[in-house]
């Protein structure tokens, strides 16, 4: 069993950023064509699904296997890397370790037994409202809302996308008409409420103006997708809604 790869530090950091808010341990599925992971947070509210093609790596050579990673440990060494560094990853089968090298720095990281780690199922969802927009726009909407409420509404209509939050005294509304969106597909109005805590974790890895896809239904989870690693990787994020009750 072997796994030998070299990857840009910032791509590995993105993987950590996407995963660490939800779980502290994750199972990496190593395949011939790349790696993937899927994780659900302890409260079963959010799911992240990440694919990284082998083209996203500088070098890649692997057999099929599973690696149980303690994300805090991986993060501890990745924090010491800089943009532009190449990180080398090597599976040490004999000692069941992952050898992580950043420049002259080496960490031989103990792996976690993957036997007890779950394989979460991805729900199939019917989410008729779909928009594609710049990442910076959704970030703006979430940031503006967090000071007044703990939840916000994502709304897709046939001619706009809206973020709406209502606090005790204040209201925040971000309205993006169709022509300021990359794409909009909707046959009516769809609205669901989401926890801002979770949305904040989700938007953290989003950088600059990369296009992100958001799908919304009525009182249904939202599905958010975006590319990473110059389109050689992909992230799907699912977040269960909050239901307003009186």
């Amino acid at each position, binding site marked *: 069993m072997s796994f030998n790869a070299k990857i840009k530090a910032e791509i590995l950091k993105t993987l950590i950023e996407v995963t660490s808010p939800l779980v502290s341990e994750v199972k990496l599925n190593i395949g011939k064509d790349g790696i993937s992971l899927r994780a659900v*947070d302890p*409260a*079963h*509210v959010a799911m992240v699904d990440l694919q990284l093609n082998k083209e996203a790596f500088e070098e890649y050579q692997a057999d099929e296997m599973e690696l149980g990673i303690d994300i805090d440990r991986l993060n501890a060494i990745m924090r010491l890397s800089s943009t532009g560094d190449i990180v080398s990853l090597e599976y040490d089968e004999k000692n069941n370790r992952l050898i992580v090298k950043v420049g002259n720095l080496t960490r031989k990281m103990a792996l976690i037994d993957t036997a007890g780690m779950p394989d979460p199922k991805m*729900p199939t969802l019917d989410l008729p409202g779909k928009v594609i927009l710049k990442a910076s726009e959704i970030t703006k909407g979430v940031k503006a809302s967090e000071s007044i409420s703990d939840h916000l509404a994502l709304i897709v209509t046939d001619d706009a996308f809206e973020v709406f939050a209502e606090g005790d005294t204040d209201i925040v509304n971000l309205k993006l008409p169709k022509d300021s969106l990359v794409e909009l597909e909707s046959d009516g109005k769809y609205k669901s409420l989401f926890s801002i805590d979770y949305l904040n974790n989700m938007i953290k890895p989003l950088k600059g103006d990369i296009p992100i896809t958001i799908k919304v239904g009525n009182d*249904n*989870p939202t599905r958010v997708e975006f590319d990473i690693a110059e389109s050689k990787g992909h992230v799907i994020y699912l977040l*269960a809604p*909050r239901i307003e009750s009186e």
Partner: protein
Amino acid sequence: MQSTSLCALCRGTKYLCGKSRCPVLVRYYSQEKIKPLLNKLLIEGASPPSVFIGRQGYPKVSIGPLIPPVMGDTSFIDTPEQWINHSLDEIVDFRSMLIRGTHTVNIYDVESPDRIVQLTRELALSKNSVFTEAFFQKKPRGRIVFSDEVQPYGPSAPIKKFDISNPKYDHRIEKAFYDTDLKARDAVLTLYENGVEVSKIQRAFSVGAFGTKKYRRFVPTRWSITAVDSNIGEYLMSQTKTAEWINEYRVYYLNQYDNRWIILMIPYAWQYELIEAWYPNTTWNPYGSNIAIFNSYEFYNGRKTYAEIGGCYYAARLAVNETLTRERRQAAAVVMREAHPGYILPIGVWNVRESVRKALSSEPYRFDTIGEALDIVRQKMDIPVERWIKNSAVLKNLLQQKRLEDFLRIT
């Protein structure tokens, strides 16, 4: 305190302030009992042992012993773990006997050759009551001090000379004291694991008995209480958070000192909240005409800022995690406290820790649904359950937040 004119009109007879007993009189009677002590420059007695580190003037704070004018085994007077079955009046009575000697030092001067510093530290590490005599520069003054965080204590005076007989050390605390490479947090956790009472750890912590050598310092009593509660709680939480969820909804109930406590445990990932409702005319809502409700909470990933609600948040969190760790279970916990007018004086954060511990040692109501659990809240508390929910981040989140598996279709 009440406005003076109201008290002058009432004079302890009409309860115009709305409390069920007159706090002025409770203080007065306690004060009367200690009056004979106040006229002397010398006090002799068996310190439980007990010390007090003030916070005013930090980093120059006043340290010193608390000494009652009685001999023998007085350890009970400074062991809040043993007080919960005693009345408010009794607690005020025995605590008000404690005369506080003060001596101003810099918090960094824990190793000072100053004799008062040395003896204060020795006293704090002792496991038994220690004969103590103190000569004051002037006669003890002041009233009984009540606060939300620290247990009450009596009048104080600056110390001129101070002596104690041979203290016996608790060997567990002594070991941590002499280990100057052991971090304070690890010392606290080890002692707790070895069964040392939280109040004893807090006392030693306040005199800088733990930690790597260069980081040792005096810690104001009220800060050390919360530091210890918070650190132990966090440690237990790290175990709680990976345990299996409980498999039912539980409601624990206790009425203590006219505080009604409910601890609601929910089969869910760890979350915690303390909600306190203060009736008008209770300690922390003296002027209001409405019930004041405050809350602090954390979700699974914890919080990074100090709880708005203060030290009691961490005291109750410790008690909750003790129960969950013992059972090796995880739950979301909401602690609700309804403080009614019979709670006339604040007696310290120990009351929160011990009340929640006591409530959790009783047999809970167990249910399969959140609705049935909330019905108990409805029965036991005066404040409507809807208002509790409205003021609760955790309950709102649990009742409104869906899970992903709610959307898994069976195909």
